[in-house]
Structures are given as C-alpha cells and as structure tokens.
C-alpha cells in the first residue's frame, strides 16, 4: 500500500529564491571549473609538442566561439570565487538573515559579471 502512495511534487512546483539559484549555480560552475582546469592543463602540456599543437588551440581560442569560451571561463571562475567568499562568511556564522543573504546573493551575481569584464580588460591590457 505504502509504495503505491504518490510522491508530492517538489522541484517542479517550488519557487526559486536567490540563494537556491546561487547554490545550484555554485555547483555547476564548480564542476565546470574542474573540467576547465583539466583542459588548461592539457593545453599547457601540449606546448611540449611544439608550435603546431600550440597554434591549433590558439586559433580555436581566437575564433568567435573561442572568445565566447574564454569569457565563459572567466565568468565561471569569477562566480565561483565570489560565491565561495559568501560561503566563508556563512561558515564564520555571519549573513544568515534573509535580507543579508539576499543582498550578498545579488552582490555575487552582479560582482561575477563585473569581475568578468575586469578580467577581460586586464587580459587585453586595457587596464
């Protein structure tokens, strides 16, 4: 009988809050960052094989898709870092009030984009 009872709907009906949205993004960017770091490592290793392999990657990164990829990486890292700082404060016991956590959440979201732009400018020697 018990197994026949349905499960009440959960993620399908539950509203997203700023904190839950950031929490899941934190996870996704975390996984992405591991993949990205691994890729960067492979790229670095490929330097050992000389010019050709280096230019292969470079040409990709210079393409439109490659630029999109790099900016994506910058955002992913920026978001992860800022969100992690938010977690540090939580671990020390601060910032649990709904209002504070909402404000810090918005700061993380906007901050991640600002940081991405900064990294972009830094990389292009525009700063």
């Amino acid at each position, binding site marked *: *009988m018990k197994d026949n009872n*349905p*499960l*009440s709907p959960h*993620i399908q009906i*539950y509203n997203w809050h700023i904190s839950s949205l950031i*929490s899941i993004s934190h996870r996704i960017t975390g996984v992405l960052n591991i993949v990205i770091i691994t890729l960067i490592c492979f790229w670095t290793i490929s330097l050992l094989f000389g010019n050709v392999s280096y230019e292969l990657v470079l040409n990709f990164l210079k393409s439109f898709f490659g630029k999109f990829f790099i900016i994506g990486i910058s955002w992913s890292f920026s978001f992860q870092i800022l969100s992690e700082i938010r977690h540090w404060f939580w671990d020390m016991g601060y910032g649990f009030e709904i209002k504070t956590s909402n404000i810090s959440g918005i700061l993380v979201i906007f901050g991640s984009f600002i940081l991405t732009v900064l990294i972009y400018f830094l990389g292009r020697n525009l700063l």
Partner: protein
Amino acid sequence: MVQINLPKNSKIQKGNYYKDKTGSKNIKKVNIYRWDPSTGKNPRIDTYEVDMDNCPSKVLDILNKIKNEIDSSLAYRRSCSHGVCGSCAMNMDGKNGLACTKSHSEITGDINIYPLPHLKVLKDLIGDLSILYKQYESVEPWLKTSKVNDRKENIQSKEDRAKLDGLYECIMCACCSTACPSYWWNGDKYLGPAVLLQAYRWIIDSRDEDRKERLKKVADELKLYRCHTIMNCTNACPKGLNPAKAIASIKKMLATV
C-alpha cells in the same frame, strides 16, 4: 539520490473543474492537488472557483470554504488556525507555509495549493511525516541531566536562556525540511533543517549535560553536512526562525571545539 522527475504513479493529471454557483463577481481560481488512496488513480489538480467576497483573509479560510460549501471530500490537516500547531503546513504559491497565517491577498493570480514537497501523500494535502518524526526522535529532544532527583530548581542565567530564543519557538511544522532540496534527495539519511534546529536547541541548552555526545552523534557526513546553505529553510519558516543559522552554528561548534 537526485531525481528530478516524479515517479510514474505520481504524475499529475488534469482534474475536475468546479464552477462558481453563487454568481459572485469577485472570483478566484484555486488549484488544489488531489489524491484519493481508494481509487488507485494518479493525483490530479482540481480547480475551484471561490467567491472571495464572502471569504476571510487566509488561505486556510479558502480551504474551509471549499470543504464546507463546494467539495466536502477535500482532505487537509488543520487545528489551531493561528500559527501555533503547525498542522496546516502546505505548499502555497510555490512556497511552503502555514495556510492559517498566509494571506491569500498576497497571492496574485490563481492560487496553487500542493502538499508539502517530496513526501509520500496519504490523501490530498496530507503528506506522510513519519520519517521526519523518527529523525526527530533520534536526536533525543529532551533534557539530559543528572539533577533529576534534586528537589531544587535547575537554574539558568538570563544569557543562557537567551541562547534558546529563535529555537524554542519551532513548532515542527516541517515547512523548512520539505523546502530543502538536500532533504528531498537525501531525506532518508540527512536530518534536515527542522530536526537539526531541534538538535541545536538541546546542544546549546546550558542545563543539558550531554552536549559532547549530542555533537558527536550529529557530526556525520550525511546527517549534518548535506546542508549546503541553500537557505530555502530560512526562506520558508512561517515563524521567522533561522534553521540555516542553527545548522551553521552546529558546524561551527564542531570545527572550533
């Protein structure tokens, strides 16, 4: 484990539509999750047109009105109707809360009412909380002291008593635990915000002599550390308490003591 989709027997179907018979001009559509254990059918959403001119202010009043005037087969829990007993905890407008304290005027558009999320449904809006109660029992929520046979008062300073503020008010309505995605995916092992807040309530009580044991018992990868500070618990609590902070306080105690 994470399972985004509902099992086959839990997929929601379209239900009945109850048209307004009062001829009122102030109508609100109320969509309610229904499941009848006697039929063997899948759950459905019934829609009721409710005359809001003759309905008091809370969501529970709507449910009472539907049960009294439109469809007496609707099942839900309720008792005190002023936010003290925690019986009428349910999911309204995508957020958990107590039907008796949630004003329907806060909800724009149709009102969607579901049982508390990710529970076995017993009937309509009634979810099965027996696992949560078992977990509550497991933190031994009572005072452990050697002063049982003392005939004197067990004195607590004002400061120590103040540490229980924001904890003792919890009515165990389960709004927080059933709002927590971690509890959805690992509800059999992770204790969840409600039970952890209760655990902390006894850990921090100056009169309790079992603090070390309590901390040791709760310090578990699954029981405690499944909390990833998603904050849905604190956002959901109808009493304005902060389970996320209580859990963080346990983690902090474990890290610093």
